């Protein structure tokens, strides 16, 4: 059972300091199952230059379903947040989700910098493009 938004919000907000938050992300990464190698294909890869990230989306009963993975544990921890924000959402809700705002609230805005360095901005963009 993946942690929900509220739990994640509580945990991350109560952790101060960049090191602490990164530690928590690494721990959270353990919750996310590894994507089988067969699904880690080029077409599921999202462009980012520091780590590899894979994203698979599909619609099930009108709800968005995500599978996500990364070779970096910190990024994988962030993907847990992506999952909590978007997985299981109806199409109409996706555009309204302020993921960037949530990250900022959690003190993690730095990951969402305009930088293309990590693939996170691209992930969120791809998800929004799906809806």
């Amino acid at each position, binding site marked *: 059972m993946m942690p929900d938004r509220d739990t994640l919000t509580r945990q991350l907000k109560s952790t101060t300091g960049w090191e602490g938050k990164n530690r928590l992300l690494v721990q959270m990464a353990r919750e996310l199952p590894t994507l089988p190698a067969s699904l880690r294909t080029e077409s599921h890869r999202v*462009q980012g*230059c*520091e780590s590899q990230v894979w994203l698979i989306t599909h619609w099930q009963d009108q709800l968005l379903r995500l599978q996500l993975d990364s070779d970096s544990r910190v990024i994988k921890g962030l993907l847990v947040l992506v999952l909590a924000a978007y997985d299981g959402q109806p199409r109409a809700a996706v555009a309204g989700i302020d993921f960037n705002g949530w990250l900022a609230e959690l003190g993690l805005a*730095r990951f969402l*910098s*305009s*930088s*293309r*360095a*990590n693939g996170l901005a691209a992930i969120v963009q791809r998800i929004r493009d799906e809806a």
Partner: protein
Amino acid sequence: MPTQPFDAAMLRADFPLLAAQPDLIYLDNAATTQKPRAVLNAERHYYETTNANVHRSAHRLAHAATEAFEGARSTVARFLNAASSDEIVFTRGSTEAINLVAQSWGRSQLQAGDEIIVSTLEHHANIVPWQLLAYERGLRIVAVPLLANGQLDMDAYAALLGNRTRLVAITALSNAIGTRPDLAAVIAAAATVGARVLVDASQAVAHDVIDVQALGADFLVFSGHKAYGPTGIGALWARTELLNAMPPWQGGGEMIERVSFAGTTFNRPPYRFEAGTPPVAQAIGLAAALDWLIALDRAALAAHEDALRLRLETALLARDDVRLVGTAPNKGPLTSLAFSHAHPFDVAQFLDARGIAVRVGHHCAQPLMDAFNLSSTLRISLSAYNVSSDIDTLLAALDDTLELLA
């Protein structure tokens, strides 16, 4: 209507160079403007607190540098009222921006026999890139002539437009004689034949409020150093759908998605057009300049500059040994002069001896000079920090100089 008069004298205090040289009367603003303290501070602050390479590293400084750089892009977008900051490509200045359009859009879109219309008002930067392209691709460059007062000959323009016209390259404000073409009319007419329009806003940017969405042009370029910003930075604005269709021009870091010897794929705009480490500190300085400009009462600024020009031109019109070159209605704040008995260079030398900086020459607009049958003029170009005593001192110095050279 501005609610209170524009206080140029107070503004001067913002400019360290002017404050340090109280006797300098700087009237060469169309060449480059002086820089307000806010711009110098912004650049320095960036280097002293943030400096790192952008987009590439994940550490704290690199993050802050990227935010500052992309924030600067947003400021430029806001200043031009662009639909998105993805429509802003940073360049070294206007010249590079026009070359980018010529070499990326032009090379990919234009074919032998196609026509590019340029006006006779244009700066070399808005002529030579098209000539180079025309020579390479067998295009035709067609020049719109001027009326005697320096206005664009709109009838001739209408007649030149045709189904081979692919682009109209036009200045928003002539750096040599101050003419502001009727851009709305130029763009509307171009639309009737499906031609694209590139607006050279190099001079307009410091004086006019620019709204690219209202304007309806396709490309617009400007240089930071002519709008109170640093050297080494400028911007191209282009509509998203045009940028998306344009192939890369320069290759290198930033503009790629994936590189291999087997094949390389490219990043999306605007990054596709920003190969290599960009002028980061200069983009931040430019944003500070635009913020400084945005904070002014722009209508009052324009009225102030226009009043100075009229004060000057009214006095000069009374002299029969001075000729105003370019007398179009709605001119920008600059005045170009020819003298019946003196060479502009000699006049400028004596003005310089009194601390008055003006420019003499063809102003990188030789076809325009040829049209007026002149080899050079003396240009007085105004800016926000000029005051009416600058004009009066200039006029007195002109009196003496023209007598001396009579």
